[in-house]
């Protein structure tokens, strides 16, 4: 494993980049935006975790009154909303941002300013939806907001107003991000990196971006209908006017089910990066992993009504969705086996990152099994809306998504900060997390099947649920301790962690060829990629020769990826390099500046921030519509619109980066 003895390399600033807070507000560098996403998402993860601890404290024993019913309903609603939209999705976004351009050999994403816009909309939306809890005005209709409960008739007041407005804002952030990454992945790959040479994280993220842009419009429409009902008196969910409450449920779950794959596929991608590195062998069955990811994405749009098996859709609809749900279990199960066989025959190193990745395999399997149990509608009638479902989705979300994301954080922390996270603290984090989460969520299978409904702020004694709930509560406290250790690890290692070189783990993909942290321009030379495992090719070519999608294997298959691209490349190879081979992948020091290399860097600008601010102000004007006077509402609406339109025009009419200068 070749590492470069790493001198201190500070993250280099763009020629026009600012310092301090203004520097963060104006940044258009995908790596810094990724860092913003990471820390904001970790903050919200703690916030959502605190909400979980409150839930578990209230449910530790029967008939407790740690919080009132009204407060509890706000807390469980916000726990779900925070974790899904403000913690897990943005943690994935952090990786999209930091990692995708590096993995495909690009200098930045396709639209750097749109990227910044996405982040600021997310932060502002997160604030809008989270702050009201301090005023007892938080959303309280559940994270899924079923109508008619969330209509004006049954939830008057500001709680649900905040929810619809906040979610609508967050949706815009995700959509913008989706367009950006689709374009980036399709169009900005280094020469020679065809789709089947892309790293798995990028592949899974690619599928996720399609899920985002196709699923979010549906919930946008569902929310628009609810906004219109609540603010403009329309009848979409007004049952007295003949509306059907199932309209909301269908629209919501047509979004909601792809959403859960949006939550888990990036974590799957991270596991697919981590396992091969620490098993010292390639991912087992790369094409099947790709196809199964695509299949999960596609099928994910066909299973939504398995959330609605109790609503009485009729036997044909029930059967259809039952079958599609079982079908989607197949590609998911295939992945688990492929991962296990990646480890098989390897030389496994149990770094913390690898422990978390293996932990995902163990826990997601359990969550997947309970998912298959749900797929049978008659059996599901005993499971749905009970704690059995709570167990299932926490196994797949906590044991799945979050564990995968933790694996990714331990794995990529050195790449983005130049320092390693402490492995000893990491082991404490891992083990306490594993034990704690199992202790929290496994008993829920039993309380659910013993009759405990969901979303109840308390329960009576002698129902047979006491022990399970007590165990869950203690497990949750353990998880809380584990999380605090993790945060401490991050804070401490960022300052004093052991320095990392380019490639502390001996990994195969492009991002490990550049310095840690990477210079602003990412790659001094955009490499010509001749392999699925470019760095292993460089280090141990004899081992990777016959792996598909290395230059040699392509040659054996008579595929000429290089030749096909040659006509499109304006390419200046070093004398001595074989033009057919291109600029080989090599470890870069990253000590030169962009100016010295003649690489144009996008301007830093605050226009995306102000556009985001204008948008959020505009949308939030709705929240003042219940006041006696409409002056604040129109003021915010037009003020926000002016800010948005003005910033947008300035943004669109100004250049992204200076005219390029070749030395």
């Amino acid at each position, binding site marked *: 494993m070749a590492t470069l003895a790493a001198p201190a390399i500070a993250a280099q600033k763009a020629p026009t980049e600012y310092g301090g807070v203004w520097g963060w507000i104006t940044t258009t560098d995908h790596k810094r935006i990724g860092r913003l996403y990471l820390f904001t998402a970790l903050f919200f993860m703690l916030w959502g975790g605190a909400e979980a601890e409150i839930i578990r404290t209230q449910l530790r024993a029967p*008939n407790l009154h740690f919080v009132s*019913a*009204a407060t509890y*309903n706000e807390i469980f609603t916000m726990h779900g909303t925070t974790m899904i939209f403000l913690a897990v999705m943005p943690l994935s976004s952090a990786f999209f941002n930091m990692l995708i351009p590096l993995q495909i050999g690009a200098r930045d994403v396709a639209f750097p300013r749109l990227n910044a816009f996405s982040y600021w909309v997310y932060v502002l939306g997160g604030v809008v939806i989270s702050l009201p809890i301090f005023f007892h005005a938080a959303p309280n209709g559940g994270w899924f907001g*079923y109508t008619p*409960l969330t209509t004006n008739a*049954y939830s008057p007041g500001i709680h649900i107003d905040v929810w619809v407005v906040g979610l609508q804002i967050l949706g815009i952030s995700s959509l913008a991000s989706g367009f950006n990454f689709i374009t980036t992945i399709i169009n900005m790959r280094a020469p020679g990196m065809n789709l089947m040479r892309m790293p798995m994280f990028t592949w899974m993220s690619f599928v996720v971006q399609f899920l985002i842009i196709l699923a979010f419009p549906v919930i946008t429409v569902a929310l628009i209908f609810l906004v219109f009902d609540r603010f403009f008196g329309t009848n979409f969910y007004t*049952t007295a006017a003949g509306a059907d*409450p199932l309209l909301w449920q269908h629209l919501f779950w047509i979004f909601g089910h792809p959403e859960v794959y949006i939550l888990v596929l990036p974590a799957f991608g991270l596991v697919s990066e981590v396992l091969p590195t620490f098993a*010292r*062998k390639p991912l087992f*069955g*790369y094409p099947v992993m790709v196809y199964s990811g695509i299949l999960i994405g596609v099928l994910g749009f066909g299973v939504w009504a398995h959330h609605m098996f*109790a609503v*009485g859709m009729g*036997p044909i609809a*029930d*059967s259809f969705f*039952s*079958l599609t749900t*079982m*079908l989607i279990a197949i590609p998911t199960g295939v992945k*688990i*086996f492929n991962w*296990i*066989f990646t480890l098989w025959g*390897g*030389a496994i*190193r*149990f770094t913390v990152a690898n422990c978390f990745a293996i932990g995902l*395999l163990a826990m997601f*399997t*359990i969550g997947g099994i309970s998912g*298959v*149990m749900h*797929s*049978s509608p*008659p*059996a599901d*009638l*005993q499971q749905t809306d*009970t704690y059995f479902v709570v167990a299932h989705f926490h196994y797949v979300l906590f044991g799945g998504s979050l564990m995968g994301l933790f694996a990714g954080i331990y794995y990529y922390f050195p790449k983005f900060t130049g320092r390693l996270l402490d492995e000893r603290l990491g082991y404490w984090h891992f083990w306490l997390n594993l*034990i704690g989460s199992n202790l929290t969520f*496994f*008993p829920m*299978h*039993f309380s659910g099947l*013993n*009759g405990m*409904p969901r979303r*109840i702020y*308390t*329960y*009576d004694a*002698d*129902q*047979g649920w006491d022990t*399970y709930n007590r165990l869950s509560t203690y497990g949750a406290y353990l998880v809380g301790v584990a999380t605090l250790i993790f945060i401490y690890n991050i804070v401490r290692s960022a300052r004093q962690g052991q320095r990392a070189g380019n490639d502390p783990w001996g990994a195969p993909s492009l991002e490990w060829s550049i310095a840690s942290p990477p210079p602003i321009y990412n790659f001094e030379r955009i490499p010509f990629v001749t392999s699925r495992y470019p760095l292993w090719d460089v280090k141990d070519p004899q*081992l990777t020769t016959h*792996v598909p999608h290395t230059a040699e294997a392509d040659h054996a298959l008579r595929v000429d990826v290089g030749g096909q691209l040659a006509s499109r490349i304006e390419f200046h190879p070093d004398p001595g390099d074989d033009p057919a081979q291109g600029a080989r992948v090599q470890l870069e020091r990253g000590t030169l500046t962009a100016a010295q290399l003649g690489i144009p860097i996008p301007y830093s600008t605050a226009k995306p921030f102000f556009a985001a601010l204008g948008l959020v102000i505009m949308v939030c004007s709705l929240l003042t519509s219940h006041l006696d006077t409409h002056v604040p509402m129109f003021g915010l609406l037009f003020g926000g619109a002016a800010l948005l339109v003005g910033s947008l025009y300035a943004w669109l009419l100004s250049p992204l980066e200076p005219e390029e200068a070749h030395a």
Partner: protein
Amino acid sequence: MPHPSRARRRVAVAALAAACLLVACQHGPNTTFEPHSEFGREIDNLWKLLLDVGTIVFIFVESLLVYTIIRFRRREGQPEPKHVHGNTRLEILWTVTPAIVLACIAVPTVRTIFRTQARATRDALQVEVYGHQWWWEFRYPQYGIVTANEAYLPIGRKVNFALRTQDVLHSFWIPQMGGKRDLIANHTNYLWFTPDSSLGVLDWNGTCNEYCGLSHANMKFRVYTVLPADFERWAHHQALATTVGAVPPATPVAAPAAPAKVGSAATPDPLVRTVAQVSGAAPAGPAAPAPVADAGDYVFPADRMRVNVVPHTPIPDGLAFSNLVTGDAERGMQTYNKSACIGCHAIKGNPYSAGIVGPNLTHLASRHTIAAGLYPNDTDHLRLWIKNARAMKPGVVMPVLGLNEVDPLTHVQVTAGSGGLTDQQIADIVAYLQLLR
């Protein structure tokens, strides 16, 4: 890599898991693992299949994983492993095998779906369920019964529940009888099953399983499975009116004439219907004095109630009622007829009380629980409930009636002018209500 401590830790995790399983093996009192109807058994058969398959898959996959990470951990001086990129045969194997396993689940699943969703036959006992925030209305149209929160079912007879609501979503679940079904406005859903003939005379818990607002957790109901003959006695009795004391006047009153005590908390008049409207076929003329306790009446014996069916909800802090007050039923009826109660509640046989917003109270005293299964039906709880229902159950529509009590929702104190009732008046009303068997 501290391997020995990892092994120790693995043992700890395994021990914990074993402990969990041991705890889990004891079935709770509301368990779904012991079905008591054919519907429940159909589901249970599927469930057993799912559990068996799930357990086998779990053991297989997790063992494979654990074996792999132990066997292939890196050892000192080990050469770089051979790079294997895949094995098509294996991949086909582990695609096809799960598909076959799932097909083995799919076939009985679809069969069961069609069997359990076929419309119940006409010979079923029809029970109409209306979900309200946060209580259950039960009607037996074949018997002319309107009751609330407690339903009696004859064992061995198919029952068909027609589920409706006019407010938010709810879900009807008796865990030990079978699956649940949602109540959705503008829809009628059906759920049917037959309580086993071998069932004893038993009581069952029911819950609402779709988040429906503030007191979703408190929207419970009770079901009693009884012998068919006892069921008939119960049903015929429930259909009768109850009267206390003097025979009510000939002309039923559509709305209270001078609702002096009915304050802003009372329901609007348009919701009050006449006795004729409420009781259906019941004549509007003078009602014969109904027996207070019918020899033909049947009530599930209170001493047979199991501990998980008896509510243990604690009384909220700050709510108290003097033990020294004794209620007078006759006086209580007079007070009742002039208070806010009649705006929401109906008592068949009391022409003043014809409200439809709240639970029907005609045979309140025959029920074992009040407030949708939240509290036991006894003097103390009834008194406290009337005194400050909103403190007893968050968010209820029922207004706070106790004089000088503070409404936890509006923070307004109840005064005499707004219809507040003294402890004595409440005790009287409770005495009256306790005669409504």
